[in-house]
């Protein structure tokens, strides 16, 4: 089947993720949107791996997954801490607090 399919799918997911990052106010939601972006990338990776059937693509996808896991862990931890200090995880209030 056509490589374009996968790639377009990735592009759309990516854009949606970007939109989420821009539009969302709640930190957790932003993290989710980032997950979308990462997965979009993964889809592309796999697609390319398939195109010139090599294992690297898959390996990279796995890397990304792992990093994403780490990122989510740390990210949520930070969100928690911020919430504990500020009783809010609205990003704009956050940025208002920081000089």
């Amino acid at each position, binding site marked *: 089947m056509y490589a374009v399919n996968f790639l377009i799918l990735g592009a759309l997911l990516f854009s949606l993720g*970007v939109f989420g*990052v*821009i*539009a*969302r*106010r709640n930190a957790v939601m*932003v993290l989710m949107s980032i997950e979308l972006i990462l997965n979009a990338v993964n889809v592309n990776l796999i697609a390319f791996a398939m195109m010139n059937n090599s294992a690297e693509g898959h390996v990279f996808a796995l890397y990304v997954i792992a990093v994403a896991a780490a990122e989510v862990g740390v990210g949520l931890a930070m969100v928690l801490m911020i919430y504990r200090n500020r009783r809010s995880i609205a*990003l*704009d209030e*956050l*940025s*208002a607090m920081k000089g």
Partner: protein
Amino acid sequence: MLASTLSSGWFLENAWLIPLIPAIGFAFIIFFGKRMPQGGSEFGLLSMAASFAIAVGATVQWIQRVNSASSEGEHALGGFFGFARAVLPMAGEEGGHSAAFVEPVVRTWTWWQSGGLEFGVGQHIDGLSIMLLLLVTFISLLVQIYSTEYVSGDRRYTHFFAALTLFSAGMLVMVLAENMIQLILGWEIMGLCSFMLIGHWWEEAANSRAALKAFFTVRVGDVGLLVGTAVIFFGANDWAVERGSNGFSIRAISAWALSGEASNSVLFWGGVALFIAAIGKSGQFPLHTWLPDAMAGPTPVSSLLHSSTMVVAGVFLVARVYPVFFVGFDILDTAVNLITIIGGITIIAAAALAFVQDDIKKVLAYSTVSQLGYMMLGLGVGAWLPAVFHIFTHAFFKCALFLAAGSVSHSGSHHSFDMKKDMGGLARKMPITATTWMISTAALCGIPFFSGFFSKDEIIDNASHNGYQFFYWVGLIGAAMTAAYMTRATYLTFFGAPRGAAAGEHHDDHSDAHDAHAAHDAHDDHDAHHDDHHGRHAGPHESPWRITAPLVILASLAIFSGYLNAPAVGTHYFTDWVEPAGVAVAADHAATATDGEEHALGFAALAAEEEGGYSEGCGFTTPEDGTVCYAPKLSHAEFAWSKAAPSIVLVAFGILMSAWLSMGVFGDRKHPLKGLTSRSGIARRGHAFLVNKYYLDHLYEGVIVKAVAHPIAKAAYWINQNILDGVVNGVGRSGRATGEWVYRNLDQRVVDGAVNASGLVASETGHALQPIQSGKVNQYGALLFGAATVGAIVLILVNI
């Protein structure tokens, strides 16, 4: 080789030390002055003395050099005469003495480079610079001695001497400048120091404003200097580089201007630009308004500024690169040119203003302006030497006058300068001051056998000699007016009945007292001094020796300096020593030596003889190949009492008239007791006479003076204060206003508004902060991705 007979010497070789020493002295004063017993003044005095010594040595050696040269050039005379008759029939009798060209002593070191060209800093010693070096060092020395007494106990004593020393250094740098850049350097340093000195007592807003005005006005002129230098540089550079020099070197510029290869328009515009600078610095007509205000400074400063340094700088600039003006304005071929116009106007206008001043220093200030007008006029009419000679003589008597005025205020009128309020009859109380003052006045008025006569009269004479008839009359009238107002000032100060402080009164409104009051502001350690100052000033008395000594020296010079070049008694040393001969010399002299090599003396005299290229006459015809001219060949009107007569008569008339009027007008104003007795004595002898005198008095004061002097002069003064001054201030104010407007409307609204409005920063400018803070991260995200996308798109487009 013939040139080797041109003697040189250590002092000539190392004349560059002369400005260097005061500069170092300045550094010493700044860093160690406060700790010294004499508050740093000793450094100033020492350095000036050293410079003076070197200057004397250099002068002596220069004179030897000239003699050695002219002995070479003896039999060039024939040709000279031949030319003289050919070109200017009257010129023959004079100038047999300046036939040989005396090679200047030029040394340069690399200062900066650009575009592969190296530009030097160094010395260019010829008659003109030697003369001024001697003059400046000498007068600075005297003024510093005088100041040790005059400003003693000032809270910024040290700074005062620092500025004074640096000031002299600046002038000296300019005088022996080898190139235009160096000249600008000295020029601007002087501007800075004048700012520091005029604003010396900056606690008073008036003083600091005067300082600001002085610096600013001069700075306006400096635009001309920058532009002119640029124009001349690019005009001359290629020509000069061929000959191993560059377009900044003064010699190269002179030679180029006379080489006949220079385009006239470049010379003209360059000349105009440079002359604008001279106008600003030398207080010529439209830009002279800063000069009287500069009187806010301490008197020694005024004397230094107005005698030999600051204001002379403009005249010096014109004299220094004279060929540019000579060719650019083709002097000698016209009956009128920019320089003469400005000079003439200045002479009359300033003299008229001097009539209505009550402040003695302002009278002197305006007289300075008018005398500078004479110098400019002289340069304008092609009387280079008389103009320079007038710088020389004027320095002595004007400095003496200022110092005398200072001495009067210091010891006679309790720090007041108001002639009508606080002076009068001081001749008896302060004999030395009075005598010196009157000698100097005589010199200034141009009374025969005083120095001023020989210089000023030469200028006027040459004006008609070179075909500037109109300005001949301007000069004469100016001379008469000078005589008149100086007489008036003399009378008000030293004769008649004592008034105010001069009569020993202690009026306590020091509103008009510029000097030492500002100095004695609330400082305990000074208050004591302040008191005994008052104590010493119980009544008018002669000043201590540190003030009178310089006065005496200067006054004697005011008499004798004239005899250096007094055709009346047949002396022409000054001409021999100072005037550069207008003869063509072998071209290799245009090359400036570098790395401190002394300039290779070449075939100066030889070239002059062998191919009599000079007989074409520099400045009139182009020099032959391989030869260059450094100065135009000028002829001098020969002196004759018959020609001097009109000026003498007019001067005499001016003096008598003014004396007569002054006595009538000011004789018995406000009756102090002393005056009354004497007058009542007269009254007992003849009632009618008194009455008549009274009527005459009334007549003069009521009709003549009020009708003539006041309206005209007052009008001039009014124009001066309101229109010209208004322009200067107006420029500043309107500039400010424009700034406000531009800033408020353009900057904040339009340009800035555009940015703020662009949705990135904020939708509304007013509360720019709110929207910025909200959702910072997200907006960055948007920005980031947006930018990335745009970048990507462009990439694609580029790549297609």
